Protein backbone atom coordinates (compact mmCIF):
# COMPACT_ATOMS: atom_id res chain seq x y z
CA UNK A 1 0.00 0.00 0.00
CA UNK A 2 1.51 3.32 -0.97
CA UNK A 3 1.58 6.05 1.62
CA UNK A 4 0.27 8.52 -0.95
CA UNK A 5 -3.16 6.90 -0.63
CA UNK A 6 -3.22 8.14 2.96
CA UNK A 7 -2.93 11.84 2.12
CA UNK A 8 -6.29 13.49 2.77
CA UNK A 9 -5.96 17.04 4.18
CA UNK A 10 -8.72 19.64 4.28
CA UNK A 11 -8.75 21.99 1.31
CA UNK A 12 -6.52 24.96 2.03
CA UNK A 13 -5.22 23.59 5.33
CA UNK A 14 -1.63 22.45 5.64
CA UNK A 15 -1.22 21.26 9.22
CA UNK A 16 2.49 20.57 8.68
CA UNK A 17 2.99 24.22 7.75
CA UNK A 18 0.91 25.38 10.74
CA UNK A 19 3.07 23.31 13.12
CA UNK A 20 6.27 24.50 11.42
CA UNK A 21 5.18 28.15 11.73
CA UNK A 22 4.30 27.63 15.38
CA UNK A 23 7.69 26.04 16.06
CA UNK A 24 9.40 29.04 14.47
CA UNK A 25 7.26 31.49 16.42
CA UNK A 26 7.89 29.60 19.68
CA UNK A 27 11.66 29.56 19.07
CA UNK A 28 11.62 33.35 18.56
CA UNK A 29 9.47 33.93 21.65
CA UNK A 30 11.70 31.64 23.71
CA UNK A 31 14.71 33.74 22.74
CA UNK A 32 12.80 36.84 23.83
CA UNK A 33 12.06 35.24 27.19
CA UNK A 34 8.29 35.05 26.64
CA UNK A 35 8.15 31.54 28.11
CA UNK A 36 10.76 31.98 30.86
CA UNK A 37 8.10 31.47 33.42
CA UNK A 38 7.93 29.38 36.58
CA UNK A 39 4.45 28.21 35.52
CA UNK A 40 5.93 26.76 32.33
CA UNK A 41 8.65 24.99 34.34
CA UNK A 42 5.97 23.44 36.54
CA UNK A 43 3.86 22.44 33.54
CA UNK A 44 6.82 20.69 31.92
CA UNK A 45 7.66 18.51 34.93
CA UNK A 46 6.01 15.41 33.46
CA UNK A 47 7.30 16.15 29.96
CA UNK A 48 10.99 16.20 30.89
CA UNK A 49 11.58 12.56 29.99
CA UNK A 50 10.24 13.17 26.47
CA UNK A 51 12.30 16.28 25.89
CA UNK A 52 15.72 15.18 27.09
CA UNK A 53 16.91 14.55 23.53
CA UNK A 54 15.87 18.00 22.29
CA UNK A 55 18.97 20.11 21.63
CA UNK A 56 17.68 23.42 22.89
CA UNK A 57 15.44 22.13 25.63
CA UNK A 58 17.76 22.03 28.61
CA UNK A 59 18.79 25.66 28.15
CA UNK A 60 15.16 26.73 27.88
CA UNK A 61 14.08 24.65 30.87
CA UNK A 62 16.84 26.05 33.04
CA UNK A 63 15.73 29.58 32.16
CA UNK A 64 12.20 28.73 33.32
CA UNK A 65 13.56 27.03 36.40
CA UNK A 66 15.52 30.13 37.39
CA UNK A 67 12.18 31.86 37.95
CA UNK A 68 10.71 28.84 39.70
CA UNK A 69 13.43 28.23 42.29
CA UNK A 70 13.02 31.42 44.26
CA UNK A 71 9.83 30.81 46.16
CA UNK A 72 8.06 33.45 48.19
CA UNK A 73 6.84 31.55 51.22
CA UNK A 74 4.24 34.25 51.99
CA UNK A 75 2.73 33.98 48.53
CA UNK A 76 -0.32 31.94 49.45
CA UNK A 77 -3.73 32.66 50.79
CA UNK A 78 -4.73 31.13 54.11
CA UNK A 79 -8.12 29.52 53.49
CA UNK A 80 -10.64 27.32 55.24
CA UNK A 81 -13.13 25.01 53.55
CA UNK A 82 -15.39 24.36 56.56
CA UNK A 83 -17.84 27.21 56.13
CA UNK A 84 -19.33 27.56 59.60
CA UNK A 85 -16.15 28.32 61.50
CA UNK A 86 -14.17 29.68 58.60
CA UNK A 87 -13.39 33.23 59.90
CA UNK A 88 -12.35 31.88 63.30
CA UNK A 89 -10.19 29.09 61.86
CA UNK A 90 -8.56 31.43 59.33
CA UNK A 91 -7.69 33.85 62.14
CA UNK A 92 -6.27 30.95 64.19
CA UNK A 93 -4.18 29.71 61.26
CA UNK A 94 -2.89 33.23 60.62
CA UNK A 95 -1.86 33.57 64.26
CA UNK A 96 -0.05 30.22 64.20
CA UNK A 97 1.62 31.21 60.93
CA UNK A 98 2.67 34.54 62.41
CA UNK A 99 4.26 32.79 65.40
CA UNK A 100 6.09 30.18 63.35
CA UNK A 101 7.19 32.49 60.56
CA UNK A 102 10.44 33.35 62.29
CA UNK A 103 11.58 29.69 62.33
CA UNK A 104 10.23 28.81 58.89
CA UNK A 105 11.82 31.79 57.15
CA UNK A 106 15.30 30.61 58.06
CA UNK A 107 14.73 27.15 56.57
CA UNK A 108 13.05 28.61 53.52
CA UNK A 109 15.74 31.17 52.77
CA UNK A 110 18.44 28.51 53.08
CA UNK A 111 16.49 26.24 50.73
CA UNK A 112 16.08 29.10 48.24
CA UNK A 113 19.81 29.67 48.34
CA UNK A 114 20.59 25.98 47.73
CA UNK A 115 18.07 25.84 44.86
CA UNK A 116 19.57 28.93 43.26
CA UNK A 117 23.13 27.58 43.56
CA UNK A 118 22.10 24.23 42.06
CA UNK A 119 20.42 25.86 39.07
CA UNK A 120 23.45 28.10 38.53
CA UNK A 121 25.75 25.07 38.67
CA UNK A 122 23.66 23.06 36.20
CA UNK A 123 23.30 26.06 33.91
CA UNK A 124 27.07 26.61 34.01
CA UNK A 125 27.72 22.96 33.17
CA UNK A 126 25.21 23.07 30.35
CA UNK A 127 26.79 26.17 28.82
CA UNK A 128 30.28 24.73 29.19
CA UNK A 129 29.40 21.39 27.58
CA UNK A 130 27.36 23.03 24.82
CA UNK A 131 30.36 25.20 23.93
CA UNK A 132 32.66 22.17 24.01
CA UNK A 133 30.34 20.12 21.80
CA UNK A 134 29.99 22.98 19.32
CA UNK A 135 33.80 23.35 19.13
CA UNK A 136 34.19 19.59 18.61
CA UNK A 137 31.51 19.53 15.91
CA UNK A 138 33.28 22.38 14.13
CA UNK A 139 36.59 20.55 14.39
CA UNK A 140 35.07 17.34 12.97
CA UNK A 141 33.55 19.32 10.12
CA UNK A 142 36.93 20.86 9.30
CA UNK A 143 38.66 17.47 9.45
CA UNK A 144 36.01 15.91 7.21
CA UNK A 145 36.58 18.63 4.62
CA UNK A 146 40.28 17.73 4.38
Amino acid at each position, binding site marked *: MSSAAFEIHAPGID*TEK*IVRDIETSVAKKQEDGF*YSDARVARAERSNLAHLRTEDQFLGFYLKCLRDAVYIDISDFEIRERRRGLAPLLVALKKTIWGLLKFYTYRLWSQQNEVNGLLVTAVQGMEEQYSAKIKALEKRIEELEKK
Partner: protein
Amino acid sequence: MKKNAHIAFVSPRFAAGATLGGAETLLRKLAEHAAASGCRVTFLATCAENHFTWENSIPPGSKKFGDLEVIYFPVDNDRNTGEFLRAQQAISTGKPVSAEEESVWMKNSVHSRAMYDHLRAEGGKYDAIIAGPYLFGITYAVSQIWPKKTLLVPCLHDEAFAYLSIMQSMFADTAGCLFNSEPEKILAQKIFGMPEAKCRVVGMGMDDFECSPTDFARRHKIDVPYLLYSGRREPLKGTPLLLDYVNAFRLRTGRDIMMVLTGSGDFHAPPELEGHIFDAGFVSEREKHDAMAGAVAFCHPSVNESFGIVLLEAWLAGTPGLVHARSEVLKYQCRKSGGGLWFKSYPEFEEELILLLDNPDLRKNMGQAGRKYVLEIYSWGNIGQRLFEALESL
Protein backbone atom coordinates in the same frame (compact mmCIF):
# COMPACT_ATOMS: atom_id res chain seq x y z
CA MET B 1 -6.24 -18.40 2.73
CA LYS B 2 -9.82 -19.38 2.00
CA LYS B 3 -12.60 -17.05 3.11
CA ASN B 4 -14.06 -19.94 5.11
CA ALA B 5 -10.78 -20.63 6.94
CA HIS B 6 -10.83 -21.41 10.65
CA ILE B 7 -9.02 -18.66 12.58
CA ALA B 8 -8.24 -18.53 16.28
CA PHE B 9 -7.90 -15.11 17.90
CA VAL B 10 -6.10 -15.02 21.23
CA SER B 11 -6.37 -12.14 23.65
CA PRO B 12 -6.01 -11.94 27.45
CA ARG B 13 -9.62 -10.81 27.90
CA PHE B 14 -12.95 -10.89 26.13
CA ALA B 15 -15.86 -9.20 27.88
CA ALA B 16 -19.49 -9.07 26.89
CA GLY B 17 -19.48 -5.27 27.28
CA ALA B 18 -17.12 -2.66 25.88
CA THR B 19 -14.92 -2.13 28.93
CA LEU B 20 -11.66 -3.56 27.65
CA GLY B 21 -8.38 -1.97 26.63
CA GLY B 22 -7.72 -0.69 23.11
CA ALA B 23 -5.72 -3.76 21.97
CA GLU B 24 -8.37 -6.19 23.20
CA THR B 25 -11.13 -4.16 21.54
CA LEU B 26 -9.16 -4.16 18.30
CA LEU B 27 -8.69 -7.96 18.34
CA ARG B 28 -12.34 -8.48 19.10
CA LYS B 29 -13.46 -6.19 16.26
CA LEU B 30 -11.13 -7.91 13.80
CA ALA B 31 -12.45 -11.30 14.92
CA GLU B 32 -16.07 -10.14 14.53
CA HIS B 33 -15.33 -8.83 11.06
CA ALA B 34 -13.57 -12.05 10.01
CA ALA B 35 -16.55 -14.06 11.29
CA ALA B 36 -19.03 -11.81 9.50
CA SER B 37 -16.99 -12.27 6.30
CA GLY B 38 -17.49 -16.04 6.36
CA CYS B 39 -14.51 -17.31 8.35
CA ARG B 40 -15.02 -19.70 11.21
CA VAL B 41 -13.63 -17.81 14.18
CA THR B 42 -12.83 -19.10 17.63
CA PHE B 43 -11.80 -16.50 20.19
CA LEU B 44 -9.59 -17.79 23.01
CA ALA B 45 -9.47 -15.66 26.16
CA THR B 46 -8.97 -16.02 29.89
CA CYS B 47 -11.76 -16.02 32.46
CA ALA B 48 -10.46 -12.74 33.87
CA GLU B 49 -12.12 -9.34 33.50
CA ASN B 50 -9.98 -7.25 35.85
CA HIS B 51 -6.52 -6.50 34.47
CA PHE B 52 -5.10 -5.71 37.91
CA THR B 53 -6.19 -8.80 39.84
CA TRP B 54 -6.62 -11.26 36.94
CA GLU B 55 -9.25 -12.97 39.04
CA ASN B 56 -11.14 -15.72 37.18
CA SER B 57 -14.57 -14.09 37.21
CA ILE B 58 -16.11 -15.65 34.07
CA PRO B 59 -16.97 -19.37 34.12
CA PRO B 60 -14.63 -21.43 31.89
CA GLY B 61 -16.03 -22.97 28.72
CA SER B 62 -17.47 -22.05 25.39
CA LYS B 63 -19.97 -19.27 24.73
CA LYS B 64 -21.49 -17.80 21.57
CA PHE B 65 -21.37 -14.04 20.85
CA GLY B 66 -23.09 -13.55 17.50
CA ASP B 67 -20.91 -15.26 14.89
CA LEU B 68 -18.08 -15.70 17.39
CA GLU B 69 -17.38 -18.75 19.46
CA VAL B 70 -15.52 -17.63 22.57
CA ILE B 71 -13.70 -20.18 24.74
CA TYR B 72 -12.77 -18.97 28.22
CA PHE B 73 -9.82 -20.55 30.03
CA PRO B 74 -8.85 -19.98 33.67
CA VAL B 75 -5.77 -17.88 34.48
CA ASP B 76 -3.12 -19.93 36.31
CA ASN B 77 -3.26 -19.08 39.98
CA ASP B 78 0.32 -19.99 40.84
CA ARG B 79 1.99 -16.86 39.48
CA ASN B 80 4.21 -14.97 41.87
CA THR B 81 2.88 -11.42 41.56
CA GLY B 82 5.58 -9.99 43.84
CA GLU B 83 8.41 -11.38 41.68
CA PHE B 84 6.59 -10.26 38.53
CA LEU B 85 6.21 -6.70 39.78
CA ARG B 86 9.83 -6.54 40.97
CA ALA B 87 11.08 -7.70 37.56
CA GLN B 88 8.63 -5.38 35.78
CA GLN B 89 9.87 -2.43 37.82
CA ALA B 90 13.50 -3.26 36.99
CA ILE B 91 12.74 -3.60 33.28
CA SER B 92 10.63 -0.46 33.07
CA THR B 93 13.54 1.74 34.23
CA GLY B 94 15.22 0.93 30.91
CA LYS B 95 18.40 -0.40 32.51
CA PRO B 96 19.78 -3.66 31.07
CA VAL B 97 18.39 -6.75 32.82
CA SER B 98 19.75 -10.29 32.81
CA ALA B 99 18.20 -13.18 30.87
CA GLU B 100 17.27 -14.64 34.24
CA GLU B 101 15.29 -11.52 35.21
CA GLU B 102 13.55 -11.54 31.84
CA SER B 103 12.61 -15.15 32.38
CA VAL B 104 11.29 -14.43 35.91
CA TRP B 105 9.15 -11.62 34.48
CA MET B 106 7.75 -13.75 31.67
CA LYS B 107 7.21 -16.82 33.87
CA ASN B 108 5.15 -14.80 36.34
CA SER B 109 3.14 -12.89 33.74
CA VAL B 110 -0.48 -13.86 33.04
CA HIS B 111 -0.69 -17.44 31.74
CA SER B 112 -3.30 -20.09 31.19
CA ARG B 113 -2.06 -23.67 31.00
CA ALA B 114 -5.59 -24.79 30.08
CA MET B 115 -5.47 -22.57 26.99
CA TYR B 116 -2.03 -23.87 26.01
CA ASP B 117 -3.21 -27.49 26.42
CA HIS B 118 -6.15 -26.70 24.14
CA LEU B 119 -3.84 -25.23 21.51
CA ARG B 120 -1.39 -28.14 21.71
CA ALA B 121 -4.21 -30.65 21.34
CA GLU B 122 -6.44 -28.85 18.85
CA GLY B 123 -4.29 -26.11 17.35
CA GLY B 124 -3.87 -28.16 14.18
CA LYS B 125 -7.46 -27.41 13.18
CA TYR B 126 -6.82 -23.65 13.01
CA ASP B 127 -5.54 -22.25 9.73
CA ALA B 128 -4.10 -19.23 11.52
CA ILE B 129 -3.69 -18.04 15.11
CA ILE B 130 -3.82 -14.30 15.63
CA ALA B 131 -2.52 -13.23 19.04
CA GLY B 132 -1.81 -9.99 20.85
CA PRO B 133 -0.85 -7.67 22.41
CA TYR B 134 2.86 -8.46 22.61
CA LEU B 135 3.42 -7.65 26.28
CA PHE B 136 1.42 -10.53 27.77
CA GLY B 137 2.72 -13.92 28.83
CA ILE B 138 -0.19 -15.53 27.02
CA THR B 139 0.83 -14.04 23.67
CA TYR B 140 4.42 -15.17 24.13
CA ALA B 141 3.45 -18.71 25.17
CA VAL B 142 0.94 -19.10 22.32
CA SER B 143 3.53 -17.92 19.80
CA GLN B 144 5.85 -20.71 20.95
CA ILE B 145 3.26 -23.47 20.44
CA TRP B 146 2.46 -22.90 16.75
CA PRO B 147 4.99 -20.27 15.64
CA LYS B 148 4.58 -20.91 11.91
CA LYS B 149 0.85 -20.25 11.94
CA THR B 150 0.87 -17.49 14.56
CA LEU B 151 0.45 -13.89 13.49
CA LEU B 152 1.08 -11.22 16.11
CA VAL B 153 -1.06 -8.13 16.54
CA PRO B 154 1.62 -6.61 18.76
CA CYS B 155 0.27 -3.11 19.48
CA LEU B 156 3.93 -2.25 19.94
CA HIS B 157 5.21 0.81 21.78
CA ASP B 158 8.71 2.25 22.03
CA GLU B 159 9.23 1.14 25.63
CA ALA B 160 11.80 -0.81 27.63
CA PHE B 161 9.85 -4.11 27.38
CA ALA B 162 10.10 -4.11 23.59
CA TYR B 163 13.89 -4.29 23.83
CA LEU B 164 14.01 -7.54 25.87
CA SER B 165 15.80 -10.44 24.19
CA ILE B 166 12.75 -12.65 24.80
CA MET B 167 10.79 -10.30 22.49
CA GLN B 168 13.43 -10.59 19.78
CA SER B 169 12.87 -14.34 19.65
CA MET B 170 9.07 -14.00 19.65
CA PHE B 171 9.04 -11.59 16.72
CA ALA B 172 11.65 -13.62 14.85
CA ASP B 173 9.91 -17.00 15.28
CA THR B 174 6.33 -16.11 14.35
CA ALA B 175 4.95 -16.10 10.81
CA GLY B 176 4.39 -12.35 10.71
CA CYS B 177 2.83 -9.28 12.24
CA LEU B 178 -0.35 -7.33 11.65
CA PHE B 179 0.43 -3.75 12.63
CA ASN B 180 -2.03 -1.00 13.36
CA SER B 181 -0.11 1.77 11.62
CA GLU B 182 2.97 2.50 9.51
CA PRO B 183 4.99 4.00 12.41
CA GLU B 184 4.33 0.87 14.49
CA LYS B 185 5.68 -1.25 11.63
CA ILE B 186 8.75 0.99 11.28
CA LEU B 187 9.37 0.72 15.03
CA ALA B 188 9.21 -3.10 14.86
CA GLN B 189 11.60 -3.11 11.93
CA LYS B 190 13.97 -0.87 13.88
CA ILE B 191 13.87 -2.93 17.08
CA PHE B 192 13.57 -6.47 15.71
CA GLY B 193 14.97 -6.06 12.20
CA MET B 194 11.76 -7.56 10.83
CA PRO B 195 11.81 -8.17 7.08
CA GLU B 196 9.16 -6.33 5.05
CA ALA B 197 7.80 -9.69 3.87
CA LYS B 198 6.64 -10.50 7.43
CA CYS B 199 4.96 -7.12 8.03
CA ARG B 200 1.46 -5.98 7.10
CA VAL B 201 -0.39 -2.86 8.23
CA VAL B 202 -4.06 -3.66 8.92
CA GLY B 203 -5.52 -1.51 11.73
CA MET B 204 -9.16 -1.56 12.73
CA GLY B 205 -12.33 -0.47 10.96
CA MET B 206 -14.19 2.46 12.48
CA ASP B 207 -17.97 2.63 12.42
CA ASP B 208 -19.57 6.04 11.83
CA PHE B 209 -21.99 7.35 14.48
CA GLU B 210 -24.55 10.06 15.17
CA CYS B 211 -23.63 12.76 17.65
CA SER B 212 -24.56 16.27 18.72
CA PRO B 213 -22.06 19.10 19.22
CA THR B 214 -24.31 20.85 21.78
CA ASP B 215 -26.00 18.12 23.86
CA PHE B 216 -23.08 17.27 26.15
CA ALA B 217 -22.41 20.90 27.17
CA ARG B 218 -26.14 21.53 27.66
CA ARG B 219 -26.68 18.40 29.76
CA HIS B 220 -23.76 19.22 32.03
CA LYS B 221 -24.23 23.02 32.07
CA ILE B 222 -20.81 23.72 30.56
CA ASP B 223 -20.85 27.24 29.18
CA VAL B 224 -17.16 27.72 28.32
CA PRO B 225 -15.05 26.10 25.60
CA TYR B 226 -13.59 22.77 26.68
CA LEU B 227 -10.75 20.47 25.81
CA LEU B 228 -11.49 16.74 25.97
CA TYR B 229 -9.53 13.63 26.90
CA SER B 230 -11.11 10.17 26.82
CA GLY B 231 -9.55 6.97 28.04
CA ARG B 232 -7.59 5.60 30.96
CA ARG B 233 -6.32 8.34 33.27
CA GLU B 234 -2.78 7.37 34.22
CA PRO B 235 0.77 8.72 33.88
CA LEU B 236 1.55 6.38 30.96
CA LYS B 237 -1.30 7.95 29.02
CA GLY B 238 0.00 11.46 29.74
CA THR B 239 -2.93 12.62 31.89
CA PRO B 240 -0.75 14.50 34.46
CA LEU B 241 0.98 16.34 31.63
CA LEU B 242 -2.32 17.40 30.10
CA LEU B 243 -3.70 18.69 33.41
CA ASP B 244 -0.48 20.63 34.10
CA TYR B 245 -0.62 22.13 30.61
CA VAL B 246 -4.26 23.19 30.86
CA ASN B 247 -3.58 24.72 34.25
CA ALA B 248 -0.57 26.68 32.94
CA PHE B 249 -2.64 27.72 29.91
CA ARG B 250 -5.40 29.16 32.09
CA LEU B 251 -2.95 30.96 34.36
CA ARG B 252 -0.75 32.37 31.62
CA THR B 253 -3.35 33.35 29.04
CA GLY B 254 -6.24 34.25 31.35
CA ARG B 255 -8.59 32.38 29.00
CA ASP B 256 -11.44 30.47 30.53
CA ILE B 257 -11.20 26.94 29.21
CA MET B 258 -12.44 23.79 30.86
CA MET B 259 -10.88 20.33 30.92
CA VAL B 260 -13.37 17.51 30.40
CA LEU B 261 -12.35 13.91 31.00
CA THR B 262 -14.20 10.69 30.30
CA GLY B 263 -12.96 7.22 31.19
CA SER B 264 -11.63 5.55 34.29
CA GLY B 265 -8.73 5.95 36.71
CA ASP B 266 -7.72 8.42 39.39
CA PHE B 267 -5.91 11.64 38.66
CA HIS B 268 -4.52 14.49 40.70
CA ALA B 269 -5.10 17.91 39.21
CA PRO B 270 -3.23 21.07 40.26
CA PRO B 271 -5.31 22.86 42.97
CA GLU B 272 -5.82 25.94 40.74
CA LEU B 273 -7.71 23.76 38.25
CA GLU B 274 -10.36 22.93 40.83
CA GLY B 275 -13.72 24.06 39.45
CA HIS B 276 -12.41 24.01 35.88
CA ILE B 277 -12.33 20.25 35.41
CA PHE B 278 -15.35 18.14 34.66
CA ASP B 279 -14.82 14.43 35.24
CA ALA B 280 -17.66 12.65 33.45
CA GLY B 281 -16.23 9.24 34.43
CA PHE B 282 -17.14 6.14 32.49
CA VAL B 283 -19.86 7.20 30.03
CA SER B 284 -21.91 5.55 27.29
CA GLU B 285 -20.59 5.58 23.73
CA ARG B 286 -23.25 8.14 22.76
CA GLU B 287 -22.27 10.43 25.64
CA LYS B 288 -18.59 10.12 24.75
CA HIS B 289 -19.27 10.95 21.11
CA ASP B 290 -21.39 13.98 22.09
CA ALA B 291 -18.57 15.15 24.37
CA MET B 292 -16.15 14.77 21.47
CA ALA B 293 -18.39 16.65 19.05
CA GLY B 294 -18.67 19.68 21.33
CA ALA B 295 -14.99 20.01 22.28
CA VAL B 296 -12.62 22.68 20.97
CA ALA B 297 -10.16 19.85 20.43
CA PHE B 298 -9.56 16.29 21.51
CA CYS B 299 -6.21 16.18 23.28
CA HIS B 300 -4.27 12.91 23.27
CA PRO B 301 -1.11 13.45 25.32
CA SER B 302 -0.01 9.79 25.32
CA VAL B 303 3.29 8.89 23.68
CA ASN B 304 2.62 5.14 23.82
CA GLU B 305 0.05 4.44 21.14
CA SER B 306 0.02 2.00 18.26
CA PHE B 307 -3.25 3.15 16.70
CA GLY B 308 -5.17 5.86 18.60
CA ILE B 309 -8.79 4.66 18.51
CA VAL B 310 -10.12 7.64 20.50
CA LEU B 311 -8.41 10.16 18.24
CA LEU B 312 -10.08 8.55 15.22
CA GLU B 313 -13.43 8.61 17.06
CA ALA B 314 -12.97 12.33 17.78
CA TRP B 315 -12.40 12.90 14.07
CA LEU B 316 -15.57 10.99 13.25
CA ALA B 317 -17.29 13.44 15.60
CA GLY B 318 -15.79 16.29 13.52
CA THR B 319 -13.36 17.53 16.19
CA PRO B 320 -9.67 18.29 15.56
CA GLY B 321 -6.92 16.55 17.52
CA LEU B 322 -4.06 17.93 19.56
CA VAL B 323 -1.44 15.26 20.19
CA HIS B 324 2.00 14.81 21.68
CA ALA B 325 4.67 14.92 18.98
CA ARG B 326 6.60 12.14 20.72
CA SER B 327 3.90 9.71 19.70
CA GLU B 328 5.02 8.84 16.19
CA VAL B 329 1.69 7.10 15.57
CA LEU B 330 -0.59 9.98 16.61
CA LYS B 331 1.58 12.51 14.82
CA TYR B 332 1.46 10.33 11.71
CA GLN B 333 -2.34 10.16 11.86
CA CYS B 334 -2.56 13.96 12.25
CA ARG B 335 -0.05 14.61 9.48
CA LYS B 336 -1.71 12.23 7.04
CA SER B 337 -5.24 13.42 7.66
CA GLY B 338 -4.69 17.13 8.23
CA GLY B 339 -7.03 16.68 11.19
CA GLY B 340 -4.72 17.55 14.05
CA LEU B 341 -1.74 19.47 15.37
CA TRP B 342 1.14 18.15 17.46
CA PHE B 343 3.20 19.70 20.24
CA LYS B 344 6.40 18.62 21.92
CA SER B 345 6.48 21.18 24.73
CA TYR B 346 4.19 23.54 26.62
CA PRO B 347 4.88 26.65 24.48
CA GLU B 348 3.76 24.80 21.33
CA PHE B 349 0.68 23.52 23.12
CA GLU B 350 -0.22 27.06 24.19
CA GLU B 351 0.19 28.50 20.68
CA GLU B 352 -1.80 25.69 19.07
CA LEU B 353 -4.64 25.86 21.55
CA ILE B 354 -4.92 29.63 21.11
CA LEU B 355 -4.97 29.12 17.34
CA LEU B 356 -7.79 26.58 17.60
CA LEU B 357 -9.78 28.65 20.08
CA ASP B 358 -9.58 31.75 17.90
CA ASN B 359 -10.35 30.06 14.58
CA PRO B 360 -13.65 28.15 14.52
CA ASP B 361 -13.39 27.70 10.73
CA LEU B 362 -9.97 26.11 11.05
CA ARG B 363 -11.32 23.80 13.76
CA LYS B 364 -14.25 22.82 11.60
CA ASN B 365 -12.14 22.19 8.51
CA MET B 366 -9.57 20.16 10.42
CA GLY B 367 -12.32 18.12 12.06
CA GLN B 368 -13.86 17.43 8.66
CA ALA B 369 -10.47 16.47 7.20
CA GLY B 370 -10.02 14.00 10.05
CA ARG B 371 -13.50 12.60 9.53
CA LYS B 372 -12.91 12.13 5.81
CA TYR B 373 -9.61 10.38 6.54
CA VAL B 374 -11.18 7.92 8.98
CA LEU B 375 -14.11 7.13 6.69
CA GLU B 376 -11.81 6.51 3.73
CA ILE B 377 -8.84 4.75 5.32
CA TYR B 378 -10.50 2.93 8.19
CA SER B 379 -13.70 1.72 6.55
CA TRP B 380 -14.35 -1.95 7.26
CA GLY B 381 -14.20 -2.61 3.52
CA ASN B 382 -10.58 -1.42 3.44
CA ILE B 383 -9.58 -3.07 6.68
CA GLY B 384 -11.18 -6.40 5.71
CA GLN B 385 -9.32 -6.36 2.42
CA ARG B 386 -6.02 -5.65 4.20
CA LEU B 387 -6.70 -8.37 6.78
CA PHE B 388 -7.47 -11.06 4.22
CA GLU B 389 -4.55 -10.03 2.00
CA ALA B 390 -2.31 -10.38 5.06
CA LEU B 391 -3.75 -13.77 5.98
CA GLU B 392 -3.29 -14.88 2.38
CA SER B 393 0.30 -13.80 2.03
CA LEU B 394 1.86 -14.42 5.46
